């Protein structure tokens, strides 16, 4: 389980006359995702989804607020490195080391995750079987197809058996087959009792995948609940309309 309380991230941006203006990309968001659930984080571009997920994954440190992870033994962890040890983070920006083979990369990462050599080797064998990497695990990553490297990316997240997965638009720009692999993987991990946080722009995908959804707009949470609850609340029939309705209400509210 992962929990965040009142996260705030302040950025400085330069406006006219070289004046630096501060603004909150994430403005006091509290969020929690439980074991065995997929939590969807939705919102338009620039809503603060990526910043939020980066703070949860400790890639960025929040200006204010705290992130806590509860590991499989029930311990509450708040230290950056401890949290990273229990998170598998995947985004469009987490590229792979192209000059390595998948096996070489995983072995080096295993060392960084503090796994013993033998342990890492065994785990890699396991993952090769799960994700069916056998045919190309020893080829350099630069020679792999998009789908193959996508599977290696999943392998990277899986390597240290984390309790929490954070996926930031993982299926963006992928074909149906490659996104299928990721979606199946998320469902699989959920059934194993892991926590999955997931952001996307594909509403249909979110609708059938997520147990609960958090809707974000301009750094705030504007709605949360199960897809059914959100639909009922906004009197819409599908998540796409729900989304549009919520944003519309918010803009009008802002104008009023």
């Amino acid at each position, binding site marked *: 389980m992962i929990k965040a309380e009142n996260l705030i991230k302040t950025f400085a941006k*330069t406006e006219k*006359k*070289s004046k630096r203006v501060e603004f909150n990309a994430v403005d006091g968001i509290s969020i929690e995702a439980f074991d065995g659930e997929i939590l969807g984080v939705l919102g338009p571009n620039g809503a603060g989804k990526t910043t939020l997920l*980066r703070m949860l*994954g400790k*890639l*960025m*440190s929040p200006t204010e607020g705290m992130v806590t992870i509860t590991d499989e033994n029930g311990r509450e962890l708040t230290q*950056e*490195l*401890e949290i*990273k*040890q229990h*998170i598998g*983070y995947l*985004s469009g*920006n*987490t*590229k*792979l*080391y*192209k*000059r*390595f083979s998948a096996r*070489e990369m995983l072995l*080096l*990462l295993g*060392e*960084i*995750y*503090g796994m013993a050599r033998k342990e890492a080797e065994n785990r890699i064998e396991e993952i090769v079987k799960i994700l069916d990497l056998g045919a190309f695990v020893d080829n350099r990553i630069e020679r792999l197809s998009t789908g193959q490297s996508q599977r290696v990316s999943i392998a*990277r997240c899986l390597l240290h058996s984390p309790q929490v997965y954070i996926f930031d638009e993982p299926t963006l720009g992928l074909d149906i087959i490659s996104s299928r692999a990721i979606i199946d993987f998320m469902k699989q991990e959920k059934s194993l009792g892991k926590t999955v946080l997931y952001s996307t722009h594909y509403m249909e995908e979110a609708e059938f995948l997520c147990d609960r959804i958090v809707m974000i707009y301009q750094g705030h949470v504007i709605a949360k609940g199960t897809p059914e609850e959100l639909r009922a609340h906004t009197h819409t029939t599908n998540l796409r309309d729900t989304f549009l309705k919520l944003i519309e209400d918010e803009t009008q509210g802002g104008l009023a």
Partner: protein
Amino acid sequence: MKTSAKMTKIKAIYQKEMLDLLRDKKTLIMMLVVPLIIYPLIMMGSILMGSAIAGSLQSDEYQIAVVDDKAQEGMNGYDGHALRALLRDTEDELKYHLKIEEFSEQSCKEALAAEEIDAYIEVEAQDTEDGRKNVFTIYYLSSKTTSSTAANMIEEKLERYREQVSRQLLTKLGLEPELLLKPVEISRSDSSATEERVGSMLGMILPFLMISSILLGAFYPAVDATAGEKERGTLETLLTLPVGNDELIIGKFFAVSTVAVASAVLNLVSMLFMSIYFYTVVQSDDAQTLDVELTNFVPALLIVVLCTVAFALFISAVTMCVTTFAKSFKEANNYATPLMLVVMFASFVAFVPNIEFTGLLAAVPIVNISLLISDILVFEYNFSIIMIVLVTNMVYAALAIVLLIRLYNSEDLMFGEEGTSIQIFTGRGTLKSGGVPTLSDAVLVLAAALLLLLYVGSIVQVRFLLWGLLMTQLLIIGVPLLASWYTKKDMKETFSIQAPKPVWVLGAVLSEIGCYLIVILLSTLLGSLFQQDVQAVNDTMNYILEGAGFVQALLIIALAPAVCEEALFRGYFFSAARKRLRPAAAIFLSGAVFGVYHLSLVKFFTTGLLGILFCYVVYRTGSIFLTALMHFLNNAVAVCVLFYPELMEQLFPVLFSESPSLIEICLLVAVGVICLSAGLWLLKPKTAVKE
């Protein structure tokens, strides 16, 4: 966390970086092929070219003419036929041949002008102080290489001719020519050991070559490990791992310095072999044998290797700091030029003759390594200085690593806005107008201006003196103007064009006076440390000012820089730095850049200080007119001192004492600080505009 776990992570990062670097063909080429191929090529090329030039010069036949209509045959034994025979004579040790064409005096002049002949001799009987003699004049064109070579050959022949005539005359008089012509014998013997001679030869070029090659060796891996990671999109992957910034940086740093050290050692080995080969070739030309005891070089080389390692650590860390700012290889390469200029400039110190390697210089980065290598190669060991060099380099490297770890913590640098920040190479049509230049553009513009200054500026200054200085200034303002026009920048904002409040003018003058006093003290202090440097600067100034009037000098030395240099440093560069960096960082960086631009060790500190003050004034007031005024005042005082030294000394005696007393120093500092703080206080920004 346990130390062993930390070590494992550092080791894993190191392995990852090394494997990544070694699998990259570009790194391998930079590291292995360049040093192994380039030095032999350069050396061979220069040997071949040298011997080709020498060969062509020596084996050629030169067309000359002799005009001796006005010579007096028989006077002091003059014999036109004998002279011609001697000129024509092909001697064994002389590889050239002179062919005598017959021309009259008038046609000789024309033939020389038309380059039909290379030179001619006119022999004319004239009355001189010692009585009537035949005077030999060689006519040639100094602008043509073959002509001046021919003139040298003729002179050589004529010397022989004179000796021959003297000999004949002495014999005729019944005297012993050998005894009278050479009553004493002069010979020269070099008593420095051959190793020292080779060492001093290497000591001049080796530091420069080695420092540059370490920089080159470190640069590519540094870019790959920092900007490369961003460009390939693996940085975010790296940040998801449970590894601290310190572990990450140290692992990367060791990988970069491994490559840098390996590259440096390869360079060194390659260079050493080539130097020995080169020396052998040069020596065998003079039919001498090389008696260098290579074993005598071993201790010196070991120390060089040790220093090289320390220096490679330092330079790796510095390079990584610089390249961390870049988002891509292309951008990082733009940072290479200014970095290269600074490092090379500092390493040039070894070329300064007789510079004394003191403990203070031993603490100056880059300079110390350069001097140490050149000293060690002439076998001058000073263990305490070596220790200072080693320790300071380690300390600087450590400081640079600490800075690097902090930079890596900065999310601005890690997740900075996407898109190209180099607009100069972007099509003009796609650019949006307005705003201030990006820092990358500013660095590029600065590098271009500096290169123009170094190459074009120094040529026009030698050629046109004071007017050359003006042309240099126009170049300096031209580059940023052109760049900001091309990238459609807001000129008012980029160059801080804003009218000052009247009270600010007073503040600017006051703070300039205060800063001037402090700078004068500083330069007196530094002047005693770097006397040769000061002398060189003064000599250049006097040379350039020859024949110039006061007003002219005032306009070109005070007014032009006040406009042009302000536009580049406080305008274009500072506004770009200000946008990207925190105010203090932007002010110090711009100040340091202004100091470096003056290309002198002493001036680096004094003008650097001025630069910092000027930037601060622009930062507070947003008006470049104030700093232009301050800059003008500052330079105008210098011009006054150059033109009216006595008057200035009478007016302000305290400024001219070479070794001021402690009371004078305290007084100057006190007055300076008071003026400076009062001035800065007056420079209060306008009351904040309501939000």
